[in-house]
């Protein structure tokens, strides 16, 4: 395998490795910097540069404040409900629909596929969607951000293909054992599709956690805001009152000394935490799945 490597080749390898390591640094450094700022002593933050990844002094004030702040806690709660509830409904509805559509002789199958594909090609935009939600009375309810994307057309198609691979004999065997269609779905189809389902679950999870635009327009009541909308209000819109305003009241003694920059940093990181938590799973399921698929094809 390894032919004798010339010095030139070795230099090239070092350059290629360095380029990739530089990309890794550019990817991670901003997050590490935010982490350092969020843990720094408030008195020393002014003048702290954007390059450092080591906290100056050490203070958990920012995190204590964020994790006890009503607006943040409500945001976490709302995001959790939307993400967990939404993901469960997504996966269930997508899997059921895919399982039915994987029956090749199902009457009307072709028509339903066309119906689904049209939705990929043509979407009339946000205003009609908004009016639909208004008409259904979904505005300012968590349903509005769950229902509009209940079944992802792409994931559906991927899952149908996956289910189609399950040999017909397995299903007939289950039928002979007296299993009805739902039992076959639950005991045969779902276990066999576990890797595909895991991937789709993770992607729906990420989708819901990162949901922002629909949440912003459908959930106008501040008590309904998921964390992303709270973050936007605070950091992107620069609406410091969203958090700092409350902290200046006597609920939080000494909170007025907390730097806004440190709060920003903590808030951004807090919003990333669930993604970091499931990221190892994403790496395990998705990258392996994609690689396996490529080798097979």
């Amino acid at each position: 395998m390894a032919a004798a490597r010339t010095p030139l080749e070795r230099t090239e390898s070092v350059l290629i490795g360095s380029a990739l390591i530089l990309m890794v640094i550019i990817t991670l450094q901003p997050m590490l910097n935010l982490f350092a700022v969020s843990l720094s002593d408030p008195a020393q933050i002014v003048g702290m540069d954007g390059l450092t990844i080591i906290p100056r002094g050490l203070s958990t004030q920012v995190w204590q404040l964020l994790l006890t702040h009503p607006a943040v806690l409500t945001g976490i709660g709302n995001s959790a409900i939307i993400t967990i509830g939404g993901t469960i409904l997504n996966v269930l509805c997508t899997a059921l629909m895919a399982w039915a559509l994987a029956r090749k002789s199902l009457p009307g199958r072709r028509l339903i596929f066309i119906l689904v594909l049209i939705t990929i090609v043509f979407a009339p935009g946000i205003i009609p969607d908004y009016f639909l939600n208004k008409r259904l009375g979904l505005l300012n309810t968590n349903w509005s951000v769950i229902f509009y994307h209940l079944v992802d057309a792409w994931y559906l198609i991927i899952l149908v293909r996956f289910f189609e691979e399950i040999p017909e004999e397995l299903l007939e065997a289950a039928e002979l054992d007296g299993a009805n269609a739902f039992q076959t779905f639950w005991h045969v189809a779902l276990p066999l599709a576990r890797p595909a389902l895991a991937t789709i679950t993770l992607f729906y999870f990420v989708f819901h956690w990162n949901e922002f635009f629909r949440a912003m327009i459908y959930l106008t009541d501040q008590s309904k805001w998921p964390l992303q909308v709270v973050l936007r209000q605070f950091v992107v819109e620069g609406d410091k009152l969203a958090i700092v305003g409350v902290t200046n009241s006597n609920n939080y003694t000494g909170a007025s000394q907390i730097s806004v920059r440190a709060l920003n940093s903590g808030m951004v990181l807090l919003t990333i935490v669930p993604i970091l938590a499931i990221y190892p799973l994403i790496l395990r399921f998705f990258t392996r799945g994609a690689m396996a698929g490529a080798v097979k094809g």
Partner: protein
Amino acid sequence: MAVTGSNPAAQSAGPGNVPNSQGAQVSLSRERPGNSRAILGFSRWFPFYVMLAPGLIFFVIFHYVPIWEAQIAFEQVRIIPPNIWVGLKNFQMLFGSVVFWQVMANTIIISAMKMAFVFPVPIVVALLLNELRSARFRQSIQSVLYLPHFLGWVVISAIFIAQLSPSDGAVNDVLKLVGLKPISFMTEPNWIRWILVISENWRSAGWDSLLYMAAIIGIDQTLYEAAEIDGANRWQKIWHVTLPGIVPTIATLFILNCGMFLNADLDQVINMQNDAVISQIDIIDTYVYRIGLTAGQFSLATAAGLFKAVLGMGLILAAHVISKRLTGKGVW
């Protein structure tokens, strides 16, 4: 770019296939020989229609009812219903507006910039990754580079605002170190489109390289051995073996991106917008949102949205046909 979620490489057996009518049907008729065919079919398929129901109802209500709702593009909205049918008047107003054409131009410019400066980057990343000999080193790098793809645009925007800050952001710290003046990137009209390009790369260059990595793994290893025997060096092997090996993937993704040309990522743009730069990065989607939901011109906004939807449909159908003809694989 816009390959999130979609899986263009995967191929549908879907609507093109004629359903085969044997199989389960046969096994059932064995069980209940007396029943008429229609009843048999119904009881056989009923559970599957129950399974289909939630998803199907969702598609009809949340994708087809809005198409019907979109008729307000042809109406004048009145406070007391019913609305008045005004035909194409809203569209005439839209096409007569200077702002709309500026917004169209912004959308096209931003998409074109991403096509030129975002689309090729993951290819380069994949080629570089493929040159690493140590699989463990490569996997560690990959596992870091994929991460930003899973962050929402609010988060990425917040990170960029922090790191591009003229006072204490990392980029300007570097500029100051080499003796340059700090730049207020986020509020500088000449920079903001490039910030869209750079942040898109930051987010997806790693992740999008995955599809190319998968294609590279599929390349026949004997081709490399043959090239080595012919005395090819590293770059010649990349140029003559690896690149040709992933050209079909490049072509498929390029065509798909052309089909998505008008989707200049709403979440990204809306989180990078501010009053200083909005004229540069106001795109169709943000325009529809602004004039519709914040200014209350529902009919005009819906007209703009419909116009984009129709153009977009044309693009994606064209992409599908071209892709099918060139690579044998459609967009779905």
